């Protein structure tokens, strides 16, 4: 009778162990995965946002105007209403390129007012579209364009609002060729005396020649590409 009782207790204990073990497996393998769902939604939202940045006009997402900084006595605010956000980014790359000389980044800041207005506009648009649910980080980066040895043309811009301790949920990108009009860069550089003062001594002619050679490219050369990446982060 005592042996039978001990056997039954062991039986029950083993049974209980099996139940607990099976339950643990079930819990671990639960089909309800909230994190994946959120990631999927975030990726979908990021793609939609990038798509809307290619299709929607400034008017539909906010407003943008800037003062070109001309010393005139009348109101000279320039309002851009019909451009798409992506177009603004491309034009920011056109109007505010950066030059890297021997590893030193020189921000030309030729049209800083426009650059700031674009950033403000993008920030406002992202706040409206995604900030209610996610943190964000939008980065626009132009493929470096090597004008000559040691001299590279770059453009990058970051607009972000997220908690660095949170998790990145997705990262979506879109790439666009830069439709630079003929002669766009030379017109800026010739005026920018500030840049010239930062050039290594004696390198001015060499630098300008390098630029001009790029400004008159042979037929059918690849254009600089601007990649816009939108990361969404958890809140």
């Amino acid at each position: 009778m005592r042996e039978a009782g001990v056997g039954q207790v062991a039986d029950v204990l083993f049974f209980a162990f099996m139940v607990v073990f099976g339950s643990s497996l079930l819990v671990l393998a639960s089909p309800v995965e909230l994190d994946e769902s959120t990631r999927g939604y975030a990726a979908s939202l990021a793609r939609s946002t990038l798509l809307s940045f290619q299709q929607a006009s400034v008017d539909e997402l906010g407003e943008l105007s800037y003062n070109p900084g001309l010393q005139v006595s009348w109101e000279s605010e320039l309002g851009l209403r019909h451009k798409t956000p992506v177009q603004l980014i491309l034009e920011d790359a056109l109007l505010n390129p950066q030059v890297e000389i021997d590893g030193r980044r020189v921000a030309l800041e030729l049209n800083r007012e426009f650059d700031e207005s674009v950033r403000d506009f993008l920030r406002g648009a992202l706040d409206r579209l995604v900030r209610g649910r996610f943190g964000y980080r939008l980065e626009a980066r132009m493929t470096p364009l090597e004008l000559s040895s040691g001299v590279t043309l770059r453009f990058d811009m970051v607009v972000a609002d997220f908690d660095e301790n949170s998790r990145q949920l997705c990262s979506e990108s879109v790439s666009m060729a830069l439709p630079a009009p003929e002669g766009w860069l030379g017109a800026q550089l010739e005026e920018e005396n500030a840049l010239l003062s930062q050039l290594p001594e004696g390198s001015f002619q060499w630098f300008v020649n390098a630029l001009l050679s790029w400004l008159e490219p042979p037929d059918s050369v690849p254009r600089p590409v601007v990649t816009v990446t939108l990361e969404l982060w958890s809140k």
Partner: protein
Amino acid sequence: MSARGFLPFTTVGFLLLILTVAMLGHFSWGRHQAELTRIDEGAGNSLLGEVASVQNDLEQAARYSVYEALWNVSKRASDYSGREAAQNRKEAIESLASRNFNELLSSIVLTRENLGTSARLDIEQALASLDLRRGEGGFVIAIVDLPDETNIGASTLDNSLGLELPYENFGTLVDSRYYLLENRMQRFAGDLDSIGTKWKYAEYAMAYAGAWGGSGVTLSKSRSRALFQLAWADHELSTFGSSDYSVTAYDLSGIEGADQVLEGYDSNVVAEPLSASQVRALVDEIEASLNELDGVAGELRRASSAVNAAANFDVEDWADLMSSRFGDVQAALDASDAEGAKQKFRELCGNFELTYSYPSGQLGKASTSIGGGQLRVQEAEARFQQMLDLLESSASGNPLMKQFYENLTGDGQALARQISSGVSDVVGRLEGLESRVHAREVQLRAPAELSSTFPGDWEERFVGAVNDNLARAGGVLGEARGRAGEAIDSFMEFVNGNENLLASLYSRVSSEVRALLEEPELNWSNPYEEYPDPGEDAEVPPVTQMAEKYVIEEGEGTVGGLQLVLSDVKTHLDRMEGLAGTFESIRGEVTELEIDDDLRQALESELRFPTELTREQAYELAPPEPIESNPGISVYHEFEIKDVRYQREDPAGWFGSPTPTTIPLWFIGITIYWAQWDVTLEFEDGAVEEIFDYENPTLPRPGVDDDNQNLAMVHKPLAYRYEIPRNEFNFRLVVISLTGFEINEGE
């Protein structure tokens, strides 16, 4: 049943574990499938995004190609002229844009290949064509036609999912209102004459304000420049909704007295002194008045004739006639013509009745005619008054007509007073004449016993006798003849007794009528200088002439006098109508220039420009805000007025007189003062008109398109620049006044 149970717990536990493992396997499989689906979906969406980015590249390339082409062509819009100018410009833009686009297209293909992304543009040859269409609001829609079988393709890295999208044509909005700018500039350049007509209106208003206001006509080159600038600005405002107010204000500030021009200019001054249709209406009334006076003359002549007929009535002849009529009745009886005898006897009786009343009846007719004459004289006066009323109504907004009206209705020898006094005199004299004739008419009514003597009841008795027996009728006729003889004798006695009275009356009436109708002697004269009328080609100096006319003095009014005065008035009104017609043809069409309050306000603003830029460059970079928000176009213009010339054209001016030419119209008591100039404004070297799409500063361009000066790239609005080859504006200024005016010409 065993007390130890059906299955041991261990067995049950194993079974549960196996079940759990099976469920785990199922979950894992399901999750794997869901992950695959999510990856596929993500990959699909990524591919769509990639394809969209290629589409976006193409659209951007098209947009920037058109930006560049629009700028290059519309900055030289006037290079394309003629009837096909718009089409030629469009084709030039399409050609340039297609070239730009094809260059970018080749680069995009290479760029996509080098980028290493999954998206690609499959195109055999970068030979696209680009067409422009007008979009809503004047925007441009670029339609791009890519080569056949062009595709945008994308696939996943493992090629498990691929996408091929045929993409042979697409359209994209170019956010510059090229078509709006072109349309407005065509309207502006196609209607430059309206600048001339507005300037002309302003010059007329200023000249007439001086002529009629007493300060004299001043022709000032600086004022003409100012008025022309204002007319140009007004034409810009009405066409573009704005004007180049900064340069207009600047130019005005350099013109002496421009402030006074702006302050003193009054568009309400009616610079239309004479209207041919208005003068014609006056002439019509005068003609109606003259017709009435002609009617008065007719009435008076009829009255005189009637009195004459009464005075010259021959009663013996009538007695002989009646005797022969009795013979005629007897002859009818003898011929047994009963009906003829009755008819002739009836006529005979009627003749007796008529003849008894003939002298008084003629005087009655005369009296009626004189009464009718009075009425028609009064009607003539009423039509003259109507003419004055018309003149008064047209004088309300026209100083010249007002002056004319005052001249006609003033004191002294004013025409209205002459006509009123003359009509009053005539009416008084006619009333006297009428009462005199009427009194004689009453006096000459035949005694009633004459009728009872014969014909009395003799007609009835004779007719009854004829019906009864012709022989008895002969007896009755004899008796009737005897009574008729008695009646004739009595009537002859009555008439002969009044013969002198009638003769005297006729003498009085005829002399009065003659006096009333006779054309009076001219009683007023004055020497004057005779110039040709406006528009006549006279090359001889003025000659001294003597003006003579008749003035109706108080108490001396006659119909002839009224006729003479009014026909003279008509003659000078006809001349005035001719002057008015000539004036209207010279003055021609004008368009009212009213300086808009917003424009006036804008002209008060002072704009400062950067010293390192030209004004046009500054406008390109940041055009000033338009005066009107719709359609939102800023305006720039550039022209230099070389000179303003005034060439005197009236006869006094030909001979160097500093006063206007005088045209005396003595009969209506006025003198017209007339001066005329050919006014020409000349540009130094044409004009440039440039408009900017202020609402859409969308073209990224170098700050200054000049190799010597470069600023950073900025957004510029599309500019439409048009060079106007016209160098001269011209019109004729005619000033007409009823009061003399001074003429001053200055700088």
